[in-house]
């Protein structure tokens, strides 16, 4: 998922950085004080998840967890993923500083898309079956959409879109399934242990 430095054209890099800035701005505006710690923990989870290597499939891939961040944090996934990716670039040399904008966009926007597509099901009141199903779909689709976005980034730089996107998506099929399962498991756990996290925003005082 991490695009290396020196692969993309400057136009793509600048566009990615601009859109990411906008996304991070929206995320920070929606941020409540009470959500800062959970955002930090999810950001740390995202940071570490990239070290979990999934050996299946044709290429070297790892967990991303962007779907999980999306359904729990909504727009706040943007700053959380930006922090995680910056540290991955600085400490692990994954991706790079110039590609930070594009990489954040490629992972955070799909997270927000799954939040809007499947967030309705991941509510405390939802039936268990629907709850787990939508959580699975959110985790899996975030990876799928990320793969397509990486394909688009390469396409705008001059690579043929279909082969590039097909390769990325195919390589990530095992991760999609795994992340779907993980997202569902995490969401089910949170529903039991800390339901207020799942509402997308902190429940107002009266509801507690």
């Amino acid at each position, binding site marked *: 998922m991490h695009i290396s430095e020196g692969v993309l054209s400057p136009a793509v890099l600048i566009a990615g950085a601009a859109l990411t800035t906008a996304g991070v701005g929206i995320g920070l505006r929606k941020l409540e004080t009470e959500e800062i710690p959970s955002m930090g923990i999810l950001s740390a989870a995202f940071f570490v998840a990239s*070290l979990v290597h999934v050996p299946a499939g044709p290429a070297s891939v790892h967990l991303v967890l962007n779907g999980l961040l999306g359904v729990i944090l909504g727009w706040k996934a943007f700053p959380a993923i930006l922090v995680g990716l910056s540290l991955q670039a600085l*400490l692990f040399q994954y991706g790079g500083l110039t590609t930070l904008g594009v990489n954040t966009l490629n992972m955070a926007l799909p997270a927000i898309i799954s939040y809007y597509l499947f967030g309705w099901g991941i509510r405390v009141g939802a039936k268990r079956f629907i709850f787990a199903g939508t959580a699975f779909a959110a985790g899996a689709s975030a990876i799928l959409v990320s793969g397509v976005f990486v394909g688009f980034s390469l396409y705008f730089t001059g690579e043929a879109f279909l082969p590039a996107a097909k390769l990325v998506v195919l390589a990530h099929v095992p991760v999609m399934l795994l992340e779907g399962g993980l997202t569902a498991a995490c969401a089910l756990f949170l529903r039991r242990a800390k339901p207020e996290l799942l509402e997308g925003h902190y429940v107002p005082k009266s509801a507690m």
Partner: protein
Amino acid sequence: MCLKARCNPKVPRTRSCNVFMLLAVVCLMFCAGPGWAHKVSIFAWVEGDTVHTQSKFSGGKRPKNSTVVVYDMDGNQLLEGKTNENGEFSFKVPQKTALKVALKASMGHLAEWTIPAEEITGAPESTETSSSEIVVETATPEAAPVTDIKGPAEVQGATSTGLSRREIQELIDKSLDKKLTPIVNMLADSLDRGPRISEVIGGIGYIFGLVGVALYFAARGKRK
């Protein structure tokens, strides 16, 4: 203060949950174990007149059928080829200058390795120019003591088996290359080490530090 008051009724539950999530992060960290992922690297070395390159993802997988492009230092493309099943690609030295080898693996991965000019010009070649270089070398004073150390009988023996100085040189180079290959491979392996545990913990520490800073400013804003 007001923040603390609002959270108080929920403290035990929230805290246990946060501890659980923290534990989950730590578990993830240790699961990571041997399979570090997601960086691609290329390593190139010269053996005789051939440049060997070895590439891999930091998960240990080898990029198969990926493009390797060779440039000179001015960025002109000299040749390109595909890696084999083991992520290796070899080519004849195209010109005796420093070379830049770039690996373009799929999915936007790119890695580069520079071969300095000394490494390439130091390599013997079976062409006329390099053999003449070696002849010149034998005439230099540094080479003279070598013949002095060897007894005259040995020198005679060498000539009687019909081995010229150049052939001996080539033989030595060949066996040295053979002996050095495992070391070169080891170097290649050690070059692309995965992230160390200290870096992982450092990164998590940074994130928690950022949370602290954010909470500090949030709390200060509320107090005003």
